[in-house]
């Protein structure tokens, strides 16, 4: 069902085949794939690709999904502009 052209991470233009190839080259945990391919480092910050990538690692390595590591989700939850962050702090209007 998965084809060579199927995208895993649209932000960084990474296909399922790119990721599968990297796993077999030895980039065999999620944190490696993030730092080698850039999975999860684009504008969505992993919201669209993390689960699919973990599943791929689990399937390719024959591990239960619970054993697969996941990247650290970091702030901000959604992108925030420099202008918003630089605005004076106001009660009820925290950036």
């Amino acid at each position, binding site marked *: 069902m998965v084809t060579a052209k199927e995208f895993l991470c649209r932000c960084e233009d990474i296909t399922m085949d790119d990721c599968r190839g990297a796993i077999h080259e*030895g980039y*065999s*945990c*999620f*944190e*490696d794939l993030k*730092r*080698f391919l*850039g999975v999860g*480092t*684009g*504008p969505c*910050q992993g919201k669209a690709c993390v689960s699919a990538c973990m599943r791929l*690692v689990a399937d390719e*390595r024959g*591990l*239960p999904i619970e*054993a*697969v*590591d996941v990247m*650290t989700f*970091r*702030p*901000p939850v959604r*992108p*925030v*502009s*420099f*202008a*918003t*962050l*630089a605005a004076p*702090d106001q009660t009820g209007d*925290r*950036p």
Partner: protein
Amino acid sequence: MTGSADVPLPLIAPQAGPKKDRYEVVVIGGGAIGLAIAYELAKLGLTDVLVLDKDSLVKGATGRNGGGVRAQWTSTENIQLAQRSITAFKNFAAETGHNSFFRQGGYLFLTRSEPQMQALTKAAAFQNTHGVRTRVIALEEATRIVPGLHTGGCVGATFNPDDAVLFPWPLVWGWKEAAEKLGVEVLTFAHATGFEVSGSRITAVRTNRGTIGCTWVVNAAGAWSRDLARLVGLELPVKPERHEILVSEPLKPFLGPMLVDLSNGYYVNQDMRGELVGGLGTHTEESMEWHSSLEFAREFAKTTVRLLPRLGPVRVLRQWAGSYDKTPDAKPILGVAETGPINLVQANGFSGHGMMISPMVGRLTAQLIAGQKTDLDLRRFALERFSRGELEADPMVIG
């Protein structure tokens, strides 16, 4: 000292342990420094090398820094390490087959203080004597180099066009693969938990993946290097110092140099992915706890819109933190300490500029272990300088 049973091996880790029970050199720490050392050792023909990392690779400072590479320093040793490393980075892609996104857009320092401007002017003249092409520039020229730059409140600037930025992640993969091709082994999820010592020598490294005999041990453990040295009773004046950093959404290329505002240690560059990457010299503390703070993001944003108002709408994608391995004079500790085992080599204490000098540190450390004359005199980086009081801090530490 913890026993090996305390550190279980996660299923996601490569399950195979080291191929042998003894190596000529065991390097502890698989960051830019440790892997550069392993690669340079192999290039000198010493391929019986094992690199240990306690986690997957690129989890320490090499994976967390802003990618700056510069020769604008005020001490001979820092300048020489940086200059020769810049040359090595130029050859990195050809040597390893990995693109480090190395880009020489220069470093532009802005100051808001007259005394600091005098110091920068003196530093530029000193750098010129070493062949670094730093120039004191007028603020109008700074605005030409960085379009849209607001220099209100600044008194002057220096610019070295040969300084650079790179993307640190591929450095690790490039050196790892290049070293492995020459016969080096790299083992991840491998904690050093203790040492076996006989007389004045370490005979083996105890790890969660077995006890590994060795002729040489290298402490390239970055922010963990003090704790590692304590396992053999050696005290290093290295403190983990937490720093924060962030990255924006990608933009079309517009920012040539690494831009630095010395008033708060602000630095920002545009990497080859188009993202702005930057940090501050404030909001630091002695810590190995790497939370991100809103206070940091706000000060970074305020400085950004003050210097580059048109970046207001640009959005921050991600913040993170990491720890420098900070020494009292912000210079590294290299070589064998007189008070420690005679086969334990230090390569730590880089104080926020280890990645940028890693090629040269790799070469010097490899030369030392191979019994060759080192390209630079390592005594200037000896641990003993701290007890002798021979400290001369380099004030050009930023971020």
